[in-house]
Structure formats: C-alpha cells, structure tokens
C-alpha cells in the first residue's frame, strides 16, 4: 500500500489531466457539433455538404488517426499548438461529429405536428426553433449527450499513445515502476468509474428535470 502513497501524486495528476481534457473537449464538441448540425439542416447547400462531409469523414476515421494527424499535420498547415490542446482539439472534432448526429436525430424525434402547430399560430421562425423545437429536442438528446461525454473521457485515454500525461499513461508508468499491476489498474479503474458514475447521475437528474417541463 505504501507504494500508493509514493506514486499517488502522479496518479492524481493524471486523473486531474483526464478531467481537464474532458472538460475542455466536451464543450468544444458541443459547439462544433451543434454548428455542424445547423449547417446540415440549413437550406444553404455548401454548408450542407460541409456538414455531411465532416460527419462522414470523422465518424469513419479512428480517433487515434485524427489525433495523430492534428499533432503532426497541423503545424505544417501553419498552426503550432501545445500537445495538450492538440488532444483537446482532436477529441472535440471527433466527438463533435457524434454531437452533430445526436442533435439532428433529436430534432427529428420531435413530432412534426408540434412545428406545424407552432407555425399555424403564427410564431416566427426563430421562436418556432427556440420555444418549440429545441426544448423538445433537448429532452431526447440528454441521454446520448451524456454517453458522448463519457466517451470523451474514455477517448482522452489516447493521450497515453501520444505522450499527454493523463490517467492511463500515469497508470502505465506506475505499473512499470512498482510492478504492482493489480493495484495500479484498480486505482485507474476507480477513476474512470467515478467519472462514469457522476455523469450517469447528472444525466438522470437532468432528464428528470426535463420531464417536469412537459
């Protein structure tokens, strides 16, 4: 157990980095994904094509490939950003595609009668979207968005493959230094389980709140 105290700090730093990566990447995914979803349902054709291309390309590429290309390809395109933010960007772009599809299917899930009714009583387009469409779409999106948030946390483990010292990488070096694999991986498992648990609880809470709105 004493080894845990010797190396506990590094594991904790790793856990903190995992949280930070998640907390930075998920909003990026939300913003990017929502923007792309708007592009995809807009009547402007170049934007539709952009949205569709984005989703098709990103959802069919491995996350690791996206991250590696951002880290070593982007500088040649004139953008040099720190490793940590490369990973954040990679996670944001990758999971943004899933957010985009979630938002779209959330909107699809709203009964078309709702929109027709709103338009029939003469609501302007903006209020149809903000007062009728989105609140109902949101309800269908909470659960999948929670899943995407958890997946973002899990995806941040790829930091270990590209040299960002997050929980999985720290676990690996902890394991190699102490030769205590059971302990090392059990500690890491607790970290990821905790993230999963917190997000699941939050999702349940928000869903309950959203149900009251009905």
């Amino acid at each position, binding site marked *: 157990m004493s080894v845990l105290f010797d190396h506990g700090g590094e594991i904790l730093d790793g856990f903190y980095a995992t949280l930070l990566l998640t907390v930075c990447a998920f909003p990026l995914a939300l913003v990017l994904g929502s923007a792309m979803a708007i592009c995809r349902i807009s009547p402007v054709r*170049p934007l539709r094509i952009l949205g569709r291309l984005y989703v098709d390309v990103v959802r069919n590429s491995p996350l690791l490939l996206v991250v*590696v290309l951002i880290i070593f390809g982007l500088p040649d395109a004139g953008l040099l950003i720190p490793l940590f933010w490369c990973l954040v960007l990679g996670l944001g772009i990758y999971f943004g595609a899933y957010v985009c599809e979630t938002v779209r299917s959330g909107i699809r899930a709203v009964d078309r009668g709702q*929109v027709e009714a709103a338009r029939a009583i003469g609501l302007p387009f903006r209020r149809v979207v903000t007062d009728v469409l989105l609140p109902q779409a949101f309800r269908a999106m909470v659960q999948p968005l929670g899943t995407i948030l*958890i997946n973002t946390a899990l995806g941040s*483990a790829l930091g270990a493959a590209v040299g960002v010292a997050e929980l999985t990488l720290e676990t690996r070096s902890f394991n190699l230094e102490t030769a205590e694999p059971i302990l090392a991986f059990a500690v890491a*498992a607790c970290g990821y389980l905790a993230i*999963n648990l917190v997000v699941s609880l939050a999702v349940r809470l928000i869903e309950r709140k959203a149900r009251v709105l009905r």
Partner: protein
Amino acid sequence: MNEDILFDALGPRAKARLRTVSILCGLVLTAIVVALLVQLGLAGQLDLDRWAMLADGPILGFLLQGLWMTLVVGLVSTALSVVLGVFLALGRLSRTRWLGIPSATVIEFFRAMPLLLILFFFMFGLPLLGVRIPLFWQLVLAIVAHAGAIFAEIVRAGILAIGRGQSEAGKAIGLRHWEVMAFVVLPQAARALTPALVSQMVRVIKESSLGYVVGLAELLNNGKVLSEFSGNFIQAYVGVGVIYIVVNILLSRLAERLAERKGTVKPQLQERS
C-alpha cells in the same frame, strides 16, 4: 420529422437571396481550404513525389495487407463481442440474481473503462503476473471486453423493445424463460439488431487501430511503418485515413441496405463510438 417543414417553400426573392448566401458560403469555404492547402504547399507537403508513394504498387500492397489484418481483427472481435454481448444481456435480464448482478457488474465496468487502459493491462500488467497472451489476442480480447459490454446494452434495449405480449404469449403456451428468449424474443430482436451489428463492426474496425500501440501489423500500424520509412508523415496517414473511410462507409451502406430489405424501422439505439 423532416427538416423541410421548418421553412415555407421559398419565393423568388428568397430563392435569389439563398443563392447569394450559398455562393458566399461556398466562396468562404473554398478560401479556407485553399489557404490551408497553400500553407501545406509552402511546407512542401503537397509535392507530388511525396504523394506518389501512395500509388506505388508494393507500398499499396503493404497498406492493403494492413487492411486485411484490420478486417481479420474486426471480424473476429465483432463475432466474439456479439456472442459475449448477447450472453451478458441475457444474464442481466435473467431473473436469477446470481446471474443478473455479475452480468450487470461486468457490463457497467467494461463500459466505463477506456479501451487503451484495458489494452495496457494486457500488455504491461499481465506479463508481470506471469501470464502470456499473443499480440493478436491482446488486442482482440481488449476490444471484445470493451465492445462486448457496449453491445450487451444494445441487445438489452433490443430485447426490451420487443413487446411484452410476445413473451407473455410464449409463457402462456408453457415455454420456460430461456425457451421464450431463445425461440420467441431473440429471433425478433436479432432482426431489429442487424444494422446495429454493422455499426458494431465499424466501431470495432476503428478500435483495432490501437494495434498502432501494441505493434500489431494492422492498417494504422502499417501507416506508421510507412511514414517512418518514407518520412512522408501526412501523406501516409491521409492515405490510411482514406482507406478507413471508404471501408467504413461501404459497411454503413451495407447496413442501410440490410435495414431497407428487412423492412424494419431503424431502431433508435444510441450509438457509441
């Protein structure tokens, strides 16, 4: 809901305005792409001889060998994870507690673990405990543990979506619980789950790219070898990326076909990456 009902059919003036906006957007997007390409060109990344290697027979063959390994890992892992997923789902739905609780625990545990952590446990943890697993199975087993748990939840949702009347009818004619599951519920769930099966395969193919980390000669790993040998980093990875995208899009199209032919509604199962 179809997005079209959000707007009225456009009148001539709106149409003209839309055309202007479309052209503007197109121009802006083109400008961004061109700017990126110019930057890449200045860095020498667009030189023809850097890209020519992707058209080189032996090198293409090398990448396709990697693709073959990726597909083998994908098929084996999909098959195993589907079997595991069905058993875990049935276990979780069973009414005996000593089956239900362990199944639920396994599902929730592996769903919460990053694949790379599981893989590291096989790579770095197990050898210290004196266990040896061949490279291929390190990767496959890690994927199966992770993807199997995810698929279990998809199967469970599929089973729960089958009307209760079905299983009640089965019980009414005197079938046991497992008989109801095997002969009444699962066959119907399986039909609805066919598209989910293909997206499972797409997910597994993407996950098999972690062969890059263990050094298994799959597609991304061979892309890495190619980039080390040639020094053409971006080109090797873009080439590999195109192969992934083409293969996965073909698979997804196949899923759509299957869904249409079966005449089933696409089940509203949430997809996990």
